[in-house]
């Protein structure tokens, strides 16, 4: 299982306070947000002239991330299965950490997974002719060390970078060696406006029966279960589909011991109740369902960023 990004030091009293506040009905978050409300963020695209596509986002907790996409022509190897697996290479660089740090590799995988599922059409778009394809390098630079799990930040930034990616226009005929137009204005966007959009991954956590989007690191430390839900859609106006769900390690894992003073029942004496680990199926269903509507809003906002740039 993946290592947690950073251990949040919280005292037992804080943990219990936070958990009870999040488990209420309706829940109260420490910053008084609604469960589906994101913190303010900054997003801009097409900022680096030396890349095919680029984006930069500043997340609610101050984390900043720059993503650059570059492509190179590569000859296609004629192997049967999995020949398309190496067409996309993702590198994550976190400030102040070494290249082979497991955190960087893990973060890269969370982004790669959703991009390489069959329902995202990324690899098909990279084919040029039957003998050549584009090798795409997506490089993610985390400028500030990750404070809470940066999964959503990376995924949304990558999404924006892919939306802004342009490929040179092919001028050669079908099976010749590829030749391209030198005029950058004639370049072709990787994701045409009307086609399917690149996927995003949202982090959702559950405490008791409640679910929350865009968690802070304290909320992550008390969560029962944290899911990374990947969504893809055809256009910003459609409701997206869930294309993948992954669980992440969270603070308490659902095992909670409470010395309950309230809601005890008729006895009146304080009771120690321990709930077993895990999360209920109904909660998971609720997470998936809410992700669809929240995902649609997120896609809509991302579309707004892209439109503002044109």
């Amino acid at each position, binding site marked *: 299982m993946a290592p947690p990004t950073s251990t949040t030091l919280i005292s037992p009293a804080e943990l219990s306070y936070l958990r009870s506040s999040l488990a209420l009905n309706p829940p109260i978050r420490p910053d008084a947000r609604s469960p589906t409300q994101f913190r303010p963020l900054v997003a801009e695209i097409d900022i680096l002239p030396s890349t095919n596509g680029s984006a930069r986002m500043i997340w609610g907790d101050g984390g900043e991330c*720059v993503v650059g996409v*570059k492509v190179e022509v590569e000859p296609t190897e004629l192997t049967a299965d999995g020949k398309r697996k190496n067409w996309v290479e993702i590198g994550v*660089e976190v*400030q*102040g950490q070494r*290249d082979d740090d497991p955190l960087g590799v893990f973060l890269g995988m969370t982004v790669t997974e959703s991009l390489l599922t069959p329902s995202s059409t990324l690899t098909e778009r990279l084919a040029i002719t039957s003998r050549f394809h584009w090798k795409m390098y997506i*490089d993610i*630079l985390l*400028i500030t060390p990750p404070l809470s799990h940066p999964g959503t930040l990376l995924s949304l930034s990558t999404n924006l970078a892919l939306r802004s990616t342009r490929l040179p226009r092919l001028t050669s005929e079908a099976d010749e060696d590829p030749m391209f137009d030198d005029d950058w204005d004639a370049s072709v966007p990787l994701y045409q406006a009307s086609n399917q959009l690149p996927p995003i991954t949202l982090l959702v956590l559950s405490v008791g029966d409640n679910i929350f989007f865009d968690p802070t690191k304290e909320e992550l430390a008390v969560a029962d279960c944290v899911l990374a839900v990947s969504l893809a859609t055809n256009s910003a106006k459609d409701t997206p589909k869930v294309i993948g769900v992954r669980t992440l390690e969270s603070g308490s894992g659902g095992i909670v011991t409470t010395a309950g003073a309230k809601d005890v029942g008729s006895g009146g004496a304080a009771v120690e109740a321990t709930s077993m680990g895990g999360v209920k199926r109904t909660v998971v269903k609720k997470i998936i369902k809410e992700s669809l509507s929240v995902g649609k809003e997120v896609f809509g906002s991302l579309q707004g960023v892209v439109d503002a740039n044109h």
Partner: protein
Amino acid sequence: SYVEWGNTKIICNVGGPNEPKTGANRNQDRATVTVEVCFAAFSGNERKKGAKGDRRVQEMQTALQRTFAEAILTNLHPRSEILITLHILSQDGSVLATCINACTLALIDAGIPLSDYVVACTAGSHSVRSGTNFEVEGEDPLLDMNNIEESDLPGVTIATIGNSEKITLLQLETKVRLERLEGMMAVALDGCRKLKEVMDDIVRTHGNEMARRGAL
């Protein structure tokens, strides 16, 4: 700080003065300055995932560290460490000079005591072959070279401190004729002086804005 010099774009983060991470950096009378330079894989024309141990990067780090260890008033913060991190997002020539300028601005923003602005600039020399003459004398040096010029022509990077013409860093990695060097240096020093005024302007505007918002 974020500096865009033509197409060279650099982000600089400054942290500190902090507790030194390694015991070796703990110096009893002064603060240690640590510089980390990180070239993004997408910064050049080709995608290149540079290893951290690259010699060129090491040299740049050492040069920056020595320059700023002089400029920062390190005796005011003994036994601490000032960590400067530079992310180079896009390279188009004059990278070292842009790094220095970005560092200066970031250090000012961080409130770390500097003796004065450290401003850097590049200058190059070109020659024109005409007919039987090998060179035409008196060609003016070029100020602020971009990538194409840097890879083709000899160039020097000069950093000055304050309004004086004291040079705190001079880097010449190419071969150049000796009589041209003085001309290049003069042009670069002039460029630094003008640049210092621009940077001073920006710092004051930013400072006034922060004061207006009540952040100071």
